[in-house]
């Protein structure tokens, strides 16, 4: 736990110190703000719950896009710049390295999401939605981000080349988001399976986005994050001390 905390503090500091984290944050929030102004608030008079739902739909781009950008370099950069040797020759476990980095990225992503909270607050001030709807939506965004970060971290553990790690991470996230297209073309039970492992439509679009908290969806995101973090740890173990 102590090693996780040490690595967590360093990684979070790296996001806050370097322009990289801030540039990603600024770009993501700018695009999200433009979409909110241009698409969410357009279309004349509507129920505020519908506007909020549409807002969360576009806001889901924050964890998906920023999640990949914040995670793909976490391990590959360490290898590319040789700083990984410091971690490898220190008395710490691979799981502690992965978890420390994951939690730091999740914290920074949570910070970016928190900055975007003015959008649903604007809807609440001018319409009729409950605080619970906003909290549930943001909880879903954070879970979606956790799963995306774990996928990116796994891709980062695969290679020392940051570009390849970024491409692999983005490809995995895109495939997992649009796997419903493939599900529509196959028969059950494979169809049900593919539907259920989809990252976005089955577990965010149909529940969190509408302000519905479903335990099944929470478990899905936690399990997905756990699965890919475990893969990242095992990959690191295979590469370290080999």
């Amino acid at each position, binding site marked *: 736990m102590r090693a996780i905390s040490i690595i967590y503090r*360093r990684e979070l500091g790296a996001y806050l110190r370097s322009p990289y984290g801030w540039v990603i944050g600024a770009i993501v929030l700018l695009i999200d703000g433009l979409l909110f102004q241009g698409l969410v608030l357009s279309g004349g008079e509507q129920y505020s719950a519908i506007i909020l739902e549409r807002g969360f739909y576009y806001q889901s781009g924050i964890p998906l896009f920023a999640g990949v950008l914040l995670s793909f370099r976490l391990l590959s950069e360490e290898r590319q*710049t040789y700083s990984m040797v410091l971690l490898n*020759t*220190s*008395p710490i476990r691979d799981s502690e390295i992965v978890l420390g980095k994951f939690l730091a990225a999740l914290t920074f992503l949570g910070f970016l999401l928190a900055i975007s909270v003015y959008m649903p607050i604007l809807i609440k001030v001018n319409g009729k939605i409950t605080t619970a709807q906003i909290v549930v939506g943001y909880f879903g965004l954070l879970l979606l981000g956790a799963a995306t970060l774990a996928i990116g971290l796994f891709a980062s553990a695969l290679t020392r080349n940051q570009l390849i790690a970024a491409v692999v991470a983005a490809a995995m996230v895109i495939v997992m988001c649009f796997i419903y297209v493939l599900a529509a073309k196959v028969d059950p039970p494979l169809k049900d399976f593919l539907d259920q492992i989809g990252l976005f439509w089955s577990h965010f679009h149909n529940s969190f986005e509408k302000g519905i908290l479903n335990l099944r969806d929470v478990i899905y995101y936690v399990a997905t994050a756990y699965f890919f973090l475990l893969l990242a740890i095992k990959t690191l173990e295979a590469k370290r*001390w080999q």
Partner: protein
Amino acid sequence: MIRASNLSKFYGGKRALGPVSFEIKDGETVGFLGLNGAGKTTALRIMACDLRPSGGTIEVGGVDAVAQPHEVRKRIGFLPENPPLYTDMVVTDYLRFAGELRGMSKAEVKRRLPEVLEIADLGDVASDQIATLSHGYRQRVGVAQAIVHDPKFLILDEPTRGLDPVQIVEMRNLIHDLKQNHTVLISSHILTEISQTCDRLLVLGRGKILGVGSEQDLATSETEIRQVTVTVRPPSSDDPRGQIRTVLAAVDGVKSVADPYEQGGGLAYALETTKDCRADVGRAVVQAKLDLLKLDYARSELENTFIRLVGGADASN
């Protein structure tokens, strides 16, 4: 003590090291000497628990490095060829991070930090971002992270790589200071570096140990073949070159006399000898009423030994 027994490492099907066996006693400074690809870095990385050996055993301070790598990692400070630096960090923050990673408490790191900054002579740049430091300072920060937890064993892989002559002297002095409190293992392919810093040498070639011992041990363990260069002012005779060659060839211990080349107003002859016969050569030149301008070894003892050992390894492969 570090004890390696039949240690080997394969990358795929290619052998990088071994099987080799050696012992390093506490307090020693041992140099791993060899050409590029000799297996020096592989051996050091195994000792630092950065690589798992393919075969054999390695004990560091009585602890099996394969069975208990974390225990060994606590006792070892490692400076790899490329210092493992986070360039976005300030020097002191980085050293705090490295110390805590090695299991030190915040209070211990706080107490130790001024000492480490002084040893590595980093006081002037303690508050600077690592990205802004020169290569020499970065190398010093690399050494500082290796000693921050006061390890018993210190492993330095090519510590003078890429440094300018002034920085090399500074690094040599730093290593000399570190020898007082640590068992130090250094790898280098620079002969003078090793001979000036280490008590004992371990010569590696193609993954095997070619020789172990002090510089003197290694030099005397083989048939002594020395090279002497003598520069003589040419006499005003019909055949000055022939005259000098005859004088030099007649000296006891001189095996062959190479063709001369002009140097500093004289003729320089490289002599291959079977013993240290500089005095005899000097005496012969003076007795022949020739002007002796310069007399020296063509190569250092260690260079001769190294080339002989490594050359032997190449020939046997």
